[in-house]
C-alpha cells in the first residue's frame, strides 16, 4: 500500500518500505502457490497424474528428438518385428516403428485433449454463468439447449459429423466441443444459482457493480475450479473419443494417432498374428494419458469437496 501517507517520509525508508512490501508480496504469492499446490502432498494420486501428464507433454514437445524413426516411414523388410534393441517396441505390418508412432501420437492426443477441454470449459462455463445468473427466459432457453445436447447420443453424433465432413482431428474437436459443454454448463449453472444468492454477490450488486463484473469477477472465479475439473474430464473424453472414432475407421487415415494405430492393428489382424506389441502399446498410451487427466481431476475434486477428504 503506497500512497500519500508515505510521501512525507524520506526516500530511504520509502525504498525500505517498498522492499519489505515487495518481499512480503512475494512471500504471499509464494504462500498462495504453496497453498494451491499443497493438495498434491495430500493427494499422491493427483501428483502422479500431474507427473504422467507432464511426461506426456514432454514427449509430445520433443517427439522428433525422442523418436528414433520417422513414424510414417515404411520398411517392409522389418515388418511385424517383436521388440528388439533396434525397435524397442517392435514394428507394425508396414515396418513402421511402434515406439516412434507412440511418441508422435502424443501430439494429436494432447492437441485434441487440450483443445477440447478449453472449448468445453469456455462454452460450458459461459452458458452456465449466463443461464444461472440471468435466470428467467435466458435460463430456460439455454437449459433447453443443454437438454437438447443431452438428448444427442455422443459417439454417434461425432461419427455423423466426422463422416459427413472431413475426418480430421479438428472435426473431432469441434464435435466434442459441440456436445460436451453440456455437463459443465449444468454444473456451473447450479453453482451459479447458489452463488448468486450469496451475500457477497448481493453485496456486489448493492455496491452497483455491473452484471458483467459480477459474473466474471465474483461468480466466475468461484466456479473456475469446477470448470477446471470438468475440463480435465473433457481431456479424457476427447482422447477416448478420438481413439474410438479412429478405431471405427472415421479417423484421418494419414494421421499418426494412437487410435489410428489400433485401427491398423485391427485391420492387419495383429491379434491373430500375436503381435501383442502392436495392439497393447497404443492402448496403454491412451490409458496413461486418460488416467492422468482423471487423476488430476479427481485429486482436484477431492480438494474442492471437503467431504471427500480423508479424516
Amino acid at each position, binding site marked *: 500500500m503506497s500512497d500519500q501517507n508515505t510521501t512525507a517520509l524520506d526516500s530511504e525508508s520509502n525504498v525500505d518500505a517498498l522492499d519489505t512490501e515487495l518481499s512480503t508480496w512475494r512471500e504471499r504469492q509464494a504462500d498462495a502457490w504453496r497453498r494451491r499446490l499443497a493438495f498434491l502432498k495430500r493427494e499422491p494420486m493427483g501428483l502422479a497424474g500431474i507427473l504422467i501428464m507432464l511426461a506426456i507433454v514432454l514427449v509430445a514437445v520433443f517427439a522428433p528428438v525422442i523418436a528414433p524413426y520417422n513414424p510414417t516411414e*515404411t520398411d*517392409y*523388410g522389418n*515388418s511385424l518385428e517383436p521388440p528388439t534393441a533396434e525397435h524397442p517396441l517392435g514394428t507394425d*505390418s*508396414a515396418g513402421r516403428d511402434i515406439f516412434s508412432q507412440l511418441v508422435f501420437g502424443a501430439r494429436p492426443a494432447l492437441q485434441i485433449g487440450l483443445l477440447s477441454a478449453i472449448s468445453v470449459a469456455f462454452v460450458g462455463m459461459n452458458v452456465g454463468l449466463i443461464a444461472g445468473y440471468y435466470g428467467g427466459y435466458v435460463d430456460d432457453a439455454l437449459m433447453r439447449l443443454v437438454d437438447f445436447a443431452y438428448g444427442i447420443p455422443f459417439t454417434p453424433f461425432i461419427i455423423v459429423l466426422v463422416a459427413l465432413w472431413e*475426418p480430421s482431428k479438428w472435426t473431432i474437436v469441434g464435435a466434442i466441443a459441440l456436445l460436451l459443454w453440456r455437463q459443465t454448463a449444468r454444473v456451473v449453472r447450479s453453482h451459479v444459482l447458489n452463488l448468486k444468492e450469496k451475500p457477497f454477490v448481493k453485496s456486489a450488486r448493492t455496491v452497483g457493480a455491473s452484471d458483467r463484473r459480477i459474473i466474471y469477477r465474483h461468480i466466475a472465479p468461484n466456479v473456475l475450479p469446477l470448470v477446471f475439473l470438468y475440463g480435465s474430464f473433457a481431456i479424457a473424453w476427447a482422447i477416448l473419443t478420438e481413439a474410438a472414432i479412429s478405431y471405427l475407421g472415421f479417423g484421418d*487415415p*494419414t494421421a499418426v494417432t494412437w487410435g*489410428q494405430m489400433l*485401427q*491398423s492393428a*485391427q*485391420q*492387419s*489382424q495383429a*491379434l*491373430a*498374428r500375436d503381435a501383442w506389441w502392436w495392439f497393447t502399446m497404443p492402448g496403454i498410451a491412451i490409458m496413461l494419458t486418460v488416467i492422468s487427466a482423471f487423476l488430476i481431476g479427481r485429486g482436484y475434486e477431492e480438494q474442492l469437496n471437503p467431504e471427500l477428504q480423508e479424516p
Partner: protein
Amino acid sequence: AGDGDGDGDDTDTETVAGGGGDDTVQMEGFQVPSENVVPQSDLDDAQAIPELTLIVNPPDAQPDDHETSMFVSEEIAKLGLDTTVETMTWPSQSSTVWDGTDWDMTFWQMVGRPSRLDPDEFSVQMGHSSFQEGYNYYFWEDDEYDEKVMAQREELDQDTREQLIKECQQIFHDRGPSTFLMYPQKTIPWNSERWDGVVELNGMGAVNMLTFSNIEPTGDRTELNIAYDQELQALNPFDQSGEIDMIQHRMIWDRLAWPNESALPEPRLAEEFNWKDDTTLEVPIKQGHTFHDGEPVTAEDVKYSYNIHRDYSTYFSGPVEPVNEITVVDDHTVEFSFDYHFAPFPMAAMGRIAIIPKHKWTDIIENKMDVDSPMLYQEDEPLGSGPMEFVHWKSSEEVRLERFDDHFDPIAYEARNSRIIPSVQTMLTQLENGTLDMLANYRGDKDVLKDRVESNDSLSMAATTTVGFKQISYNNDRPPFHIDGFRRAMNHRFDKETIVNDIYSGWGRSPRTAWSPPHWRAGTTTSSSATSSACRPRRTSSSRPGSSGTRATGCSTCPPTTPKSATNPLHFELLWD
C-alpha cells in the same frame, strides 16, 4: 523423362520386355509398333510436369497395395520424375478419381466376379470410350478398339470371338492406358474334414455354385456354416448388386443356365438352348419342377421373369435389350426372338436372370410395391424354385437356407447358414474351433491364413488366381500421360514379378496382358489338390522391393501357384503365361 538416370534403355528399345530389364519371359505374342516409342518433342512437354502424384489407400487396409505404390513411385523416380504417393481413403479416392479429373495416377483394383469370367464385361467397360463415366475412368479412347470390342459382343463363334478379344487386348496393351500389376489370388479355407467336394473354379475360386451344389458332408453335421464379412444387401431376385448375395440368389432361384466348370453357359432349368436361327432362341425347360410352395414352374413364369427386366430398369435390362419378344410356345417352352444376333445372351442373361413365381409377383407388383421398382421390394419369404428354400434372414447375423427336396439337382446337405462376421479375426477363430465350415471372403492376411490352415489338420485352403486385378491407372487426358509412349515406358518400368513375389508374397500372378484371359477356357481343380496349391515362394528379406533385378525364387517343391486342370483347353496360354 527417360533420360534421367542412365536406366533409360527401356525407352529406346523397340521390343519391350515386361517387367524389369532382365525379365527372361519373352512376350512373343506382341509386336510393339515403332510409333509407340516416345517422340522427343512429346517428352519435352512431359518435362514441364512438375510432380506426379500416385493415389493409394492408406497402408492399414491393404498394406501390400501401399507398399506396391511406394515401389512404383520409386521406380518412376528412377526415370527422373518427381513422384509422391498420396494416401487417400477409398471414399476420397473414389471421388477424386472416379468423379474427378484432377489426378495423375492411381492404384486401383477390380475384384473377380462370376459375370467377369466372360471377358466381355471388362473389355467393354474398361476400354470402350463410352464408359468414361464408368470403369474407363482414365479417359482412354481408341476407335479401333471400340469397334472390335463391340463386334465380339455379337460374335456367335467362340473362336472368332476369342480372336477379337485377343486383338482388343493387344490394342489395350500397346497403348497402355493403365498398367496391370497382378492378378491376386483368392484364398478360401474350409473344413475339409467335414466337407468333401469343393470345386475350385479357375478365375473365381472355391466359392461358386458348383461347390455348393457338389459339396457333401462327411460326418453327421449336415449344415454348412459359411462366413461372409458383410451384410448382404437384399434377397431380391432382380437385385444382385452385392457380391455376397449371389450365391444366396442362385440357391433360392433357379436360372435357365449356369456356368459350367469351364465357365461356359450350360443349361440348368433349361433343357437345352436351341438357336433356331440367328435371332430366335427356343428354350424348353425341365418338366415337373416346382417352386418351393409347390406350384409348378412354367414357361409363363420364365416369360414373366424376363419381362420384368424389360419393363423395369434393372441390372439386367442391358442383356435383355436385344430381345424383341418372348413367346410361350407351350407350358414348358419359351422362345426368345432378338433384334439382332446376341451371342452373350446365354451367359449374360440366362445365366443370371432368376426365374420367379408369376403367381406371387403379379400380386406384389400390382399391390404391394411402395416404390415402382421390383428391385426395391423385399419379400418376407423369398420364394423361388432353387435347390434351397429360404428360412430366415436375421440382418447382420445370418441367412439360413434349407434344402428343397424336390429339386432336379438335389444337394447333399440339409442347410446352409451364411453368417455375417465383419471381423476377420473372429471368422478365423470360428473356423478353427469348428463353428464355421468355410470362409467365403477372407480379406485378411493370407500368410496368417496359410499358417493357421497348415497347423490345423481339419482345414484346407484353396488359393485361386482370379479374374480380378490390381493396376496403376494413368489419367490419359493429362500430360504426360496423354503420350502413349510415356505410358508404355512406365508400364515396362515396373517389375511385376518383384511386385507379385516380394510384395504380395507370391499370392498372385504377374500379368502379361490386360484384364483377363477368356475364362470360358479356364478350368477347375478339385479340392484334393487345393491345399498344396497354397504353397508359394517364401519371401526372403534380401529381396526388397526397389532392389530391382533380384527376384524371389520360387519354392522348388511346390507346384505352380495356380492349379491347372487337365481338361483346361487354354487356347490362350500364350497370353496367360
